[in-house]
């Protein structure tokens, strides 16, 4: 029928990562691990009402996010890409504010940070990435910006993902479909979700090259993402990356995985911890020593404290924003509703 499409070998600048970069990756992963673990604790302490941990997905998130060129690319996250956000240098108080129930999309500026608002609809933004990417083609700049859209194994079942892959392939849009296959969609395991067993395998049906990568190997993830970006940038169309990883924690702080998987299954499915694994590798390769890891941990703790402090002082947004941010051009109806609200609720 069709032959397996291959990635164009355009990544000429695909030099091996420097020691400095490897250490930077570790520092990021350590920061993400610590902040993520802390956020779960914040929820238990009543600082935030809920959180969706990405424990175990640090390599997949940091590795891919590290490949983004913030001067031209754009990232479309779900609700679980804290590690990508951190790797891209987002304002983490702005990011975390969504979990404080301050503002749905987060309080960071998506245009400046090149990171779209947090998306709660599963597969909701996959098509946005295709549209944005096609916009780069229309704009006609050489070495164009690339859209990277994140989604999960569960999300892959949504019709929008199919429409997005087909549109992207027909239009040769520069978009990287980055799937974190973490084994679960809440309580449903991948084998009852993804017929055929692999999201990457779907790509061939659209003539899209795909890479299935060890999502717990941060370097492998980074390199796969970098080559996908190079392929897109050169005008060769979309790429699908499936990073095989594992959701080590609950779906969210409201979830109880004990109801659908045993601790044994968890241990088996999760495999080796991506952070620990990277640490061992850096040690073995002489890239970093214990002092470096301790310093990374110290920085992570410092950072977490700063973010927590920022979150704790974050007050609710003024109610007037409910009305003023709906449109660019306000309507009379909304203006009169805002007035009524002010009179009745703020007694002004």
């Amino acid at each position, binding site marked *: 029928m069709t032959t397996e499409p291959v990635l164009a070998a355009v990544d000429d600048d695909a030099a091996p990562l420097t020691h400095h970069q490897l250490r930077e990756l570790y520092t990021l992963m350590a920061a993400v691990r610590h902040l993520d673990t802390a956020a779960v604790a914040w929820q238990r302490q009543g600082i935030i009402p809920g959180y969706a941990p990405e424990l175990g997905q640090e390599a997949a998130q940091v590795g891919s996010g590290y490949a983004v060129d913030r001067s031209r690319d754009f990232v479309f996250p779900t609700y679980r890409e804290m590690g990508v956000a951190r790797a891209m240098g987002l304002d983490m108080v702005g990011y975390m504010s969504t979990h404080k129930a301050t503002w*749905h999309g987060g309080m960071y500026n998506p245009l400046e940070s090149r990171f779209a608002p947090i998306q*709660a609809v599963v597969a909701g933004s996959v098509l946005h990435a295709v549209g944005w990417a096609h916009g780069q083609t229309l704009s006609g700049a050489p070495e164009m910006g690339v859209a990277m859209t994140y989604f999960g194994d569960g999300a892959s079942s949504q019709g929008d993902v199919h429409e997005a892959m087909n549109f992207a392939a027909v239009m040769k849009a520069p978009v990287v479909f980055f799937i974190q296959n973490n084994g679960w969609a*809440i*309580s449903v395991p991948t084998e009852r979700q993804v017929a055929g067993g692999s999201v990457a395998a779907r790509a061939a049906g659209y003539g899209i090259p795909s890479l299935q990568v060890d999502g717990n190997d941060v370097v492998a993830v980074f390199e796969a993402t970098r080559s996908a970006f190079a392929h897109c940038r050169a005008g060769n169309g979309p790429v699908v990356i499936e990073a095989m990883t594992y959701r080590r924690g609950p779906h969210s702080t409201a979830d109880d995985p004990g109801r659908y998987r045993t601790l044994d299954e968890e241990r088996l499915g999760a495999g080796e911890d991506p952070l620990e694994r990277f640490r061992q590798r850096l040690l073995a390769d002489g890239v970093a020593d214990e002092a470096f890891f301790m310093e990374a941990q110290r920085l992570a703790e410092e950072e977490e404290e700063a973010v927590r402090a920022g979150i704790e002082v974050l007050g*609710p947004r003024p109610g007037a924003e*409910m009305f003023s941010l709906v449109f660019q051009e306000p309507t009379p*109806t909304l203006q009169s*509703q805002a007035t009524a609200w002010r009179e009745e*609720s703020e007694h002004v």
Partner: protein
Amino acid sequence: MSETITALTGTGETDANVQHMSMQLALNRALDEILADNPKSVIFGEDCGRLGGVFRITDGLQSKHGEDRVFDTPLAESGILGMSVGLAMAGFHPIPEVQFDGFAYPAINQIVCQIARMNYRSRGTLPMPITLRVPSFGGIRAPEHHGESLEALFAHVPGLKVVSPATPHDAYHLLKYAATRPDPVIFMEPKSRYWQKGPVNLASADMDTAAHDAGTDSGGNLTGARVVREGRHLTLVAWGAMVARCLQVAELAAEDGIDVEVLDLRWLKPIDAEALATSVGKTRRAVVVHEAPLTSGLGAEVAQLITQSCFATLKAPVERVTGFDVPYPSGDLEDEYIPNIDRILFGIQRVLEYRRG
């Protein structure tokens, strides 16, 4: 889990059929009985099998009734609803779930163009006895799209029936009623009320309607609205989680000597126009309360039905106290958005103080 209480019926006798339980448990129990009663009924959706649903409404049903009767689907709402159509054509009674209100949108095409029309298109040969459960409305400080009110949309669709219970008792009986109907019913569950307990009379029919609050009203009148509190001065019309809030408001208003009647609409399609006419015919004033945005909300339909039937005696235009014409906000602002006690009281005041000209 549920605890049997010795409730008193209207006649002063102990009724062992009356149990005190949460709406969550009442729904769970209803589904359990539906599965037992009708071998063609099947429950499915995202996470409703092994996990028992994110709200545990289907808790324990898979292990009790088997994986053929209660199963998880892949994560695709259009798939879930489209599949329901085919199952119904094959003679099943599907009881699908969408996990949250906002995730009904991906399935709207299947709901509007297929589920609601197949009976019509097939000239009655392919009925669609589908009961779609939708955890609905706001109030739980959840992420985006987890606090939506879609009743105006559903009620506008020809071929659908729409119902929403406000109490555990109604949840139990209305779900059992809906799931035995030959037509599609959208069953909107007020998620913020899942954990509230109330009396449920498990006996099936012909109980005293007035004794509902003691859980002794059951099958009596499941197809219409219900007067939850009688009053003389003004009618508050509500459904879902707003019914309890309106009862609070009525208590407060009573302190000021205002005698408020509270009508739980229950059926959002078809609407019990007669109950509206009867109540407002008596009180001559009405306020409709809902969480959905104002414009083109179901409150407009309710208000217009009241105006149509009571125009000559109405003392003031029907007021609407509703969500604003804004996207459902994040938790921090949700109390500003959902009609609160103050805003409903202001609405009542506007009606009471209305003077012509």
